[in-house]
Every structure is written in C-alpha cells, then in structure tokens.
C-alpha cells in the first residue's frame, strides 16, 4: 500500500513543511519556507540589477517563499516611476508583481524627492513610505537581501 502523509509545522521565524512519503521505504522531505525582505538600490536598466531582483522575487514566490516587502531606496526609487513599456529594452514589470501577485512594493519618499520625483505619480502597485517600513520588514524577515 502506498501511503502519503502530509504535516505542516510552524516553527519560530519560518514555516516548516515536512512531507513524509512511504513507497516501500521512507523518503523524508523538509522544506523551510522563508520570509524575505528585499531592498532594490539601482534604477531600472542599470546593470540589470533591478531585473535580477524581480526575477529572484518571482522565483522565490514560485518556490513557496514569502516576500514581506520590497523596499526601493537610493536610485532604486526610479523603478516606481519608469514604466517597462517606455523603453525598448527589457525592464521588470514591478506593477504586475504588486497588482497580480500581491507583493508589497514601497519606495522611499525622501529618496524620490531628492531625485526630483516629488510631483510625479508613481506607477500602479507602488506605495510611498519611509525607512521605518524597511526596518519593520528586516525585523520580521528570515532573510534580508539587498540588490545593488
């Protein structure tokens, strides 16, 4: 008889899912789902950093991980104002990540103002916020990754 046992265990800091499968012998899988806080510091198209961050987030979410917040800082705030359709080359579609996948995208208002973005409207899915939100994400995350 082939048995399949699935149990979900929540541990401190991270969800841990343990799958136990019995097919003659026991195979034990242990997958730890992480909570990520991501910071993006480069403008779109700059060394492809922003695209790498976007691909990482997509891959992490597809693998079952949670992205608590993506915080755009330094020149990274430009991502909130440059539509991927404006340029001929391949830019990450951040808005769809927020609007379709529900990832929280926050750009630093002070960094945006310093780059003359105080009067422009941000793209759909982006929220204006401060560094406090970045600290909050770092405190709640299992892993913190800075791109750029």
């Amino acid at each position, binding site marked *: 008889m082939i048995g399949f046992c699935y149990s979900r265990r929540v541990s401190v800091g991270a969800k841990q899912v343990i799958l136990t499968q019995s097919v003659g012998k026991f195979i034990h899988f242990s997958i730890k789902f992480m909570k990520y806080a991501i910071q993006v510091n480069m403008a779109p198209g700059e060394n492809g950093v922003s695209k790498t961050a976007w691909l990482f987030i997509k891959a992490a979410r597809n693998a079952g991980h949670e992205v608590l917040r993506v915080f755009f*800082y330094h020149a990274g705030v430009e991502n909130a104002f440059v539509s991927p359709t404006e340029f001929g080359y391949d830019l990450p579609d951040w808005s769809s990540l927020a609007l379709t996948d529900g990832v929280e995208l926050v750009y630093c208002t002070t*960094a945006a103002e310093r780059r003359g973005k105080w009067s422009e409207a941000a793209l759909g899915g982006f929220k204006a916020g401060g560094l406090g939100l970045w600290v909050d994400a770092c405190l709640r995350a299992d892993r*913190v990754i800075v791109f750029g």
Partner: protein
Amino acid sequence: MTSSCLFLINKLPESELILTETLDALLTFSAFDLEVSVLLLDDGVNLINATPCHTACESMFSRFMETLDFYGIEPVWVESESLASREILLNPVSHRLRLLTRQELPAWLRQYSVVLGQ
C-alpha cells in the same frame, strides 16, 4: 527578534547623496533601539582616504564620523587587509576606528542578525 544590524560599506559612495541616504538608513535602525555597527571593507575603505586628491572623500568621512558620533554609533570597524592593499594611512579620526583582519571577519559577522550591504 533582530537585535543587531551591520552596515557593510564595500564601495566608495558615488556621491554625497548616497552617503547621506546611507546615514539616514543607519540612524533609522539605531532609532529602533537596534545595536548598529559599521564595517568598511574593500573599496569602502577609500572613504577614510585622506590624501589631497581625495579631499571630497575626506570631508564626506568627517561628516560621516561626526554623525555616527552624535548618535553614539561607534566604533567603526575597518578591515585591515583592505587598508593595506590600497596603501591607505589612517587620518586623525582613526582613534574611533577598530581594525579587523580578514581572517577574523567570518566569525565576527555571525554575531549580527542583519547584514546590509550599501
């Protein structure tokens, strides 16, 4: 719960704007009662370069150190091999700097809950 945060500066800030924003981030973390430390590594040690051709860096560094001092964030850690390979001599504020060897670095980094590259 995170209790300590390390800001790792491994390149010279491209402008004063970047340095200002790095300081903003650093001070925000310290305002949340987190233990904040700073490490200058690789090209980040150019921040303390006091040679005449780097006067802009020198003024940036003085301001950087003054701000950290004001918020009680010290010492600033510097990786010694990075200094040596760039032949950088420490300037008068060097008494607020602590040296760390590359060998000590991995074990030393483990004490921090969050390490942020800038």
